[in-house]
């Protein structure tokens, strides 16, 4: 249960960063946090009381393992998260080059 709480909390913190932090790097960190929250959510969805890692070696029985599918999804999502973060950071480098600021309020040449 604490995992659910933590997942929801991570997501909330991520959104908090997105909504109330002006610094764009912090916003990207918020996105990363959200991603982690989602990953945690997925993993904990697949948890089964008393289960172990889904590797059927050394005498682990299929009855004893947790649901492997969410873990596979998380694996994919982690990579996606990394990609987005990397790209976002490099875009921010460019933004900084042009605007000399990371404040999202100031980066609004285009509006209306």
């Amino acid at each position: 249960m604490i995992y659910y709480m933590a997942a929801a909390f991570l997501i909330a913190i991520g959104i908090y960063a997105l909504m109330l932090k002006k610094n764009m790097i912090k916003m990207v960190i918020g996105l990363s946090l959200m991603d982690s929250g989602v990953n945690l959510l997925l993993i904990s969805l697949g948890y089964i009381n008393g289960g172990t890692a889904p590797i059927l070696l050394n005498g682990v029985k299929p009855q004893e393992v947790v649901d492997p599918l969410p873990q596979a999804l998380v694996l994919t999502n982690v990579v996606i998260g990394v990609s987005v973060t990397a790209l976002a950071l490099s875009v921010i480098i460019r933004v900084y080059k042009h605007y000399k600021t990371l404040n999202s309020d100031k980066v609004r040449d285009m509006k209306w």
Partner: protein
Amino acid sequence: MIKKSIALILIAILFVAIFFTLANDLPFGDNRTTTGVSDKYIYHGVNDTGASNLVTAIVVNYRGFDTLGEVTVLFVAATGVGAVLYNMGRPAGKKRKKTEASLIVRTGSRILFPMMLLFGAYIFVHGHLTPGGGFQGGAVIATAFLFKYVSDTRYHIDHNKFTATESVVGMTFALVGIMGLLLTGYFLFNFLPNGSPGELLSAGIIPIIYVAIGIKVGAELTGILDNMMEVEQ
């Protein structure tokens, strides 16, 4: 102030919604696999794919296409970072930073570099047996290169070689998929024998794909690092 309170209210709504939905409707730790598809993976996965690591079985075999997509995402991101930061690099020969790294860092990195590469390779080669796999191994390899960057302000990778490597392994992955299609009519079909679970050379195409992914991810992450490190301050 109003803005902040709106934000907090919204966040509270979301938090409560997500948490209580989960807690009420998906009790933690319940076994829900019997109703879904996971049962098949758990009970037949080893037989079907030959991989003892069920996560790997799913990632590379059952849902291998997701992984192809995932590799593509990373590839797109790496390409994107290259495109975004194109022409922003420092002039050749110029140092990245004014100060050199300390002796400890330099020596440490020299010693650790090959070991990290080896460890990364180990992770992705044993992806079907132990926790880990291509992405994790690739990340370790990229870390090794990051060490190099940290310790030597002039160090940079040979882009052409990296690109070529990346291309070749990427194409290998795609080709494995296409070969599956040609040989059996299914894209990404496991056309190699499964072997006996638990051995290194087992699980059909999984090791091939994981090796390809490992090298590719390593090269791509290194490329991203390189692109970012090289940006002129």
